[in-house]
Each structure stands twice: as C-alpha cells, then as structure tokens.
C-alpha cells in the first residue's frame, strides 16, 4: 500500500482549454479540406466561414479564461521555445487569410488558409506533447492522433456542409476522404494507447480504457458501415452519410475531451529508495499510482 504521492487529475486545464482543442482541431481540418475542395472546383466560402468561426471561437473563449486576460498578447513573447506562442503567431495570419478567403473566394487564399490551418493544428498537438507533467499528453504518439482526428473532423464537417449545400461531387469526395481519415485515426489511436501502456498512471489508463468503446465503435465502425451502406442505398444516402459524419465528428471531440479532462493525471511523486532508519538499511523505492 502507498499513502501519499499518487498522481491526481490536473485541474489547471479544464473544459475551457479542452474546447479550444476540440474546435481548433475541427476548424483546422475543415479549412484544409475546404482548400482541397476548392482545388477541385467546389465552393470555398461556407466551409471557410465555419472553420473561421470554430478556430476563432475556441481561441476567444480560452483567452477569456486566462488568469490575466488583459495580458493575452504576452503569449506572443516566446516563439523560440513555446508552442503556445507559436500557435498564437500562426493564429493571427490564419484568421486573417481565412477571412479573406471566405470573403473573396479565391482558391489561392483558400490554399494558404489550409496550409496555415495545418500549422495551427500541429501547434495544438505539440502544445499537448510538451506538457511534460502529464504522462498521457507527453506521449509522442499523441501527435499523430491529434492530427488524424483533426483531419477526420474536418472531412466530417465538410461532408455535412456539402450535404446541406447539395454539392454532389463534394459529398462524394468528402466521403472517401472521411473513410481514409477514419482508418488513419483508429490506427493512430491504437498506436497511442499501446505506447502509453506502462508509461502513464493507472487512473489515466483507465480513463482512456473507458473512452475506447464509444470511440472505436460509435466513432469508427458505425460511420464506416453507414458510409458503405449509403453507397449502396441511393434513396437514404444523404441521411446515412450525414449521420456517419456526425458520429465521426462527435467521437473526435469526445476522445479529445477525455484526453484533456479525464486522462490528464499528473506525474505524481516517486522515490528511488526508502531511507535507512536507525540501525536498519535502506529499502526499495516507490512510485505510487503507477
């Protein structure tokens, strides 16, 4: 038995921060897919406006949650080593270029916004990875998972926008992209969970275990089946495809929310040896909660 020193769930980053990872990832993914769509001649404005809203909204609410929101611009002071500063540096041009792309509907601007969106998404993934006090976040295999789920969420949102707009070709293309992205995401998830075994506190692993069934089942198996069925049943294609997109999107949000707010157990404390007491000798160490 161990008393004292066990890891506990961090409380510094709560749902406010989690929401920024949710909407930032989805918005970035959407801008990327919108850029690809624009290259294929599809409309650019609607998905770009939505991506802009998601990224801007996430950033705005997390800024308001700062301990000292009026000093928010100080976040730009350390691009040399801080991925949060780098995210802030990318966010400015990204929001500006995306706004112009939405207003002017120039493919070139859409492409530039898509590239900046990838950089923004990468910054978000690195922000988590550099949080070395939280074992479930610092695992390098989280990086591909965050990137992959951003792509899934972007493809899913684009699919929903395309269905609403009645863009047939875009719907088809987004469905194929969503399928590929889903496979990539589940592989990234498997890799992340495997790498984390033995490298995170027990409670963090349990939190991820609880997320497994809904993420894999409702977030991957079901959407893939729905997309396949939709391809064979033209009369029900739109609702089935929409449901697939919605499930893939919500699963991504759910797993990121779980990683940030449920699996965010800190390192805890550990000793390599217990001390010698009196005439006794030193003993084995302890790493409670692992």
């Amino acid at each position, binding site marked *: *038995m*161990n*008393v*004292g*020193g066990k890891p506990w769930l*961090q409380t*510094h*980053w709560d749902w406010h*921060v989690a929401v920024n990872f949710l909407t930032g990832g989805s918005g970035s993914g959407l801008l990327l897919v919108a850029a690809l769509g624009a290259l294929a001649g599809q409309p650019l404005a609607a998905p770009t406006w939505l991506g802009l809203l998601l990224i801007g909204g996430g950033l705005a609410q997390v800024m308001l949650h*700062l*301990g*000292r*929101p009026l*000093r*928010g611009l*100080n*976040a*730009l*002071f*350390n691009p040399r*080593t*801080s*991925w*949060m*500063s780098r995210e*802030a540096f990318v966010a400015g041009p990204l929001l500006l270029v995306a706004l112009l792309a939405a207003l002017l509907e120039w493919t070139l601007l859409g492409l530039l916004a898509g590239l900046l969106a990838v950089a923004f998404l990468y910054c978000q993934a690195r*922000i988590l990875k*550099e*949080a*070395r*006090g*939280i074992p479930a*976040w610092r695992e390098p295999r989280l990086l591909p998972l965050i990137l992959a789920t951003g792509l899934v969420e972007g493809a899913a949102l684009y699919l929903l926008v395309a269905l609403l707009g009645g863009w047939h070709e875009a719907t088809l293309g987004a469905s194929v992209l969503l399928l590929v992205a889903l496979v990539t995401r589940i592989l990234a998830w498997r890799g992340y969970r495997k790498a984390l075994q033995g490298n995170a506190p027990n409670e963090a692993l349990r939190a991820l275990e609880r997320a497994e069934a809904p993420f894999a089942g409702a977030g991957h198996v079901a959407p893939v089946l729905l997309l396949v069925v939709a391809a064979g049943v033209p009369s029900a294609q739109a609702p089935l495809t929409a449901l697939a997109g919605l499930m893939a999107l919500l699963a991504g949000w759910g797993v990121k929310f779980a990683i940030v707010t449920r699996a*965010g157990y*800190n*390192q*805890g*404390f*550990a*000793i*390599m*040896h*217990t*001390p*010698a*007491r009196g005439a006794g*000798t*030193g*003993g*084995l*160490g*302890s790493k*409670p909660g692992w």
Partner: protein
Amino acid sequence: MTRYVMVADLERCVGCQTCTAACKHTNATAPGVQWRRVLDMEVGEFPDVRRAFVPVGCMHCADPPCMHVCPSTATGQRADGLVTIDYDLCIGCGYCAVACPYQARYMVEQPGQAYREGRMRSETQRENPGRLGVAQKCTFCSDRIDYGEQHGLTPGVDPEATPACVNACIASALQFGDIEDPDSNVSQLLAAHKHFRMHEELGTDPGFYYLWEDR
C-alpha cells in the same frame, strides 16, 4: 559558476512540516498553497512496510520544462540556477503547471481565507494581489539569497542568506548550497551519502537531491 540546490536527508526528516509552516509564514502563501510540503509515503505490504517523509516543491531544474513552454517568458532562469516567475508578465495560462512533473506550481484566482469566520488579519495585511491569476511556486527564497550575497554572506551557511524552510528544519534534514563548490555543505553531503533525484528519467536535471543512506 554557481548552482544552488537543496538536499533533503530522508534518514533525518521526521515529517513535522515545520518547513511547510516556515515557508508559508515567510512567503505569505494563500490557503491551499504550499510551496514546500512534506509527503508521507508508506511503502510495501505488511509485514514489510516502510515509511518515508519526502519534502517536495519546485526542483529548480537545470532544464525546466515550465520555462520552455511559458509563452510570455514570465518563467525564467537565473545564472545561479534558480527558476523564477515574473508575476507582471505571466498571463495565467497554466501551461507551466501542466508542464511541471513535480506538481510544484499553483494558481490562485481569488483572495482566500483559511477559516469560514472571515479573513485573518495576517491574510489581509500580507496579501499580494500581484500573485492572483498567475503561476506561483517556491523561489528558494531568492530574496534572502540576494540579500546574503549583497552582504557577503554564504547561502546555505548563514541563516540570513538561506531559504526559510532550511532554517526552520528541526532535524537539519534540509540543506542548501552551491553544488558547483566542492567544499560546500551540499557537495560534502552528496559525497558522503547515496542519493537520488526525483523523476530523473524525465531529463529535467532537478536541483533537489534526496539522501537515503550513508556511503
């Protein structure tokens, strides 16, 4: 070069928390904030059970993750190894707190009180509004070190130049000094004892050593 470190002799520490109280008194930290605290760890299974009292706090790492992630450069590092926070620059994003593997950082949003009946006079008089909404942690009593150096005193030897927790320790379990000086108290203790540092595998090069057995 100077690098100030702390040494905790686990054979000596009795878990009295006097260091915790001394730190709170010296630095006027808010309720719930303990820059210095002592863990009570029970290790093993009956009948082979051991107990260890383990002082913890900011380890003033040579390679501090909190500093690298800080977007505002509020967290810095002095030439003598002390990791610092500029309360006027900090934006209160909490990134440093999740980057620290020693759970050493705190954030207080509102002035607190220890008792329901109202704030104590000391809480009102010694409140530091500059610490609200920003990250805070152990400073190794840098003001005392600076004072000592300006007056020709030796940190870790002269009490006026030594962290309050070290001065207060009833068992001389906590020691402080310059590890780069081979004649310093901490260098000699480390030479005479087996020791380890916490979470050394994370590569932070912590400036806090634990003695656990004589050599």
